[in-house]
């Protein structure tokens, strides 16, 4: 890893990271702030929710109204879209551009002519990527934890909260690996931001569709969201071995392939 490049990249991405942190934290705070109102009017709200078709509720992640009555259930149902979907969009947008932007911004001719190996460039940028994803998850999870502590009416399982946060982090890292892999496949450099965001949204849509429709439940397995268990109020909630193996295995595989491709890639500006 090259320290000079690492520090420059951290500075370059600092404002973007800050904006994403503020936006996701704001959305979490906003959502959790209605929890007490929800609990005070739970019978009315549950009554209203019962009028909504089951499929539509499942699309939002609500499979059981009782999930919403626990503070952790309310947090996981309402914040999955922010922390998992927005976090994954942040990860994939950053990762798909972190190497590629040197090409389409025509700065690669300066970077690649420094005394630094391609592998050092790759690992310096990978370190920046992982640190950014980790910091986003740390700050937003911390914000979520503080919100839960402030609005809770009954104790909740910190262990389950940490498991949920770990799944979110692993999901974000997997999307970071996907973005990195996509960027190394691009021959002629151009931004792939729209494609990357679209990919996250399509995979999230496939996941929700698989939850709504029994006949479509199998296609959910092509989406990484399927492996990020958000059923945090389940008494048997845990980090499942095969889910961990899935996230870590695919992330490592894609990162390894990306490194190999980048080291041998023809880079034009």
């Amino acid at each position, binding site marked *: 890893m090259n320290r000079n490049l690492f520090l*420059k990249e951290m500075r370059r991405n600092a404002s973007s990271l800050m904006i994403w942190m503020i936006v996701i934290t704001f959305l979490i705070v906003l959502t959790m702030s209605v929890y007490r109102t929800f609990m005070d009017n739970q019978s009315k709200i549950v009554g209203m929710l019962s009028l909504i078709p089951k499929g539509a509720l499942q699309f939002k992640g609500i499979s059981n109204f009782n999930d919403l009555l626990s503070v952790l259930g309310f947090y996981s149902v309402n914040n999955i879209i922010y922390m998992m979907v927005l976090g994954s969009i942040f990860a994939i947008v950053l990762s798909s551009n972190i190497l590629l932007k040197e090409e389409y911004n025509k700065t690669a001719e*300066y970077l690649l002519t420094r005394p630094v190996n391609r592998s050092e460039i790759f690992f310096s940028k990978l370190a920046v990527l992982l640190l950014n994803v980790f910091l986003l998850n740390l700050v937003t999870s911390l914000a979520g934890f503080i919100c839960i502590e402030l609005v809770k009416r009954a104790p909740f399982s910190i262990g389950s909260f940490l498991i949920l946060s770990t799944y979110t982090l692993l999901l974000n890292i997997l999307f970071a690996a996907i973005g990195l892999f996509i960027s190394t496949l691009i021959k002629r450099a151009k931004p792939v931001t729209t494609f990357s965001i679209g990919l996250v949204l399509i995979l999230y849509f496939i996941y929700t569709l698989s939850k709504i429709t029994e006949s479509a439940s199998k296609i959910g397995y092509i989406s990484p969201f399927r492996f990020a268990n958000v059923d945090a109020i389940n008494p048997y909630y845990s980090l499942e071995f095969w889910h961990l193996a899935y996230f870590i295995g695919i992330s490592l595989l894609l990162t390894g392939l990306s490194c190999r491709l980048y080291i041998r890639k023809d880079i034009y500006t």
Partner: protein
Amino acid sequence: MSTPMIDITDLSKFYGKARGIEHLNLEINEGEIFGFIGPNGAGKSTTIRILMNMIFPTGGSARIMGMDVIRETKKIKSLVGYIPSDANAYSAMDVHEFLTYCIRFYQVENGEKRITELSELFELDLNRKIDELSLGNRKKVSIVQSLMHSPKLLILDEPTTGLDPLMQSVFFELLRSENKRGMTIFFSSHILGEVQMFCKRVAIIKEGKIIQLEDIDTLRKKQLKKVSIEFTDQLIKENLTIPGVEKVITGPDNIISFMYSGTLNDLVGFLSGKKLINLMIEEPSLDEIFMHYYKN
């Protein structure tokens, strides 16, 4: 015998089926100022990009200071400076920030002093944002970053684009003084005048192949002559069929001029007995030589 500064052997690069360069062979010695000329698409930038390990060759090999450009690229790059033809520095940085970022890749003592010296020489404002700079000023940044670690080899790809004549003169003066101190210079350009003025030896590249490799002086003197004849005898114009006559231009007042690659004896033999007013045999400019090779 000393190791060549650049040693290119049978180097090829294809982009799918499209040709980049084909079986290129070139040897550049330490301390040389070497010109590499050819029009756009001839393969100049492809060659340079392989040397700088930005792209990989399809075949052949290239070595700089005896080191393989792929396997030992890091060591090579610590000893090489490079001015790209059209590169944008990081637009959010100011000039000083960018140059400091660049110099930190090298183990340079007094790096800050070197940045100041070179910036003052090129009248570069270190506090300006890169994206506020004109093309000429961006080029100056590029020149400064290429020289601040005092490289042994400097690779230039169209280095004067955007520079005003005054700055071009400062730039060439600096290069000459660095060359006297031992720096080898590989100068790629399609501006023939500056290659002619600055380089000692030149390679002409056409469609991915080197078609001529000579000293600049030898290239000019060796074969090609520019001949102008003022005549009263129309037979000269009508029977100008001796081998080696090309690109005949008929001027006003019975004057013709042409490029001639045959022997002077043949030319004089042909003209003897004809009615001439004036005969001028000159060395052609590099532009004319270049066009000659390209037409053939």
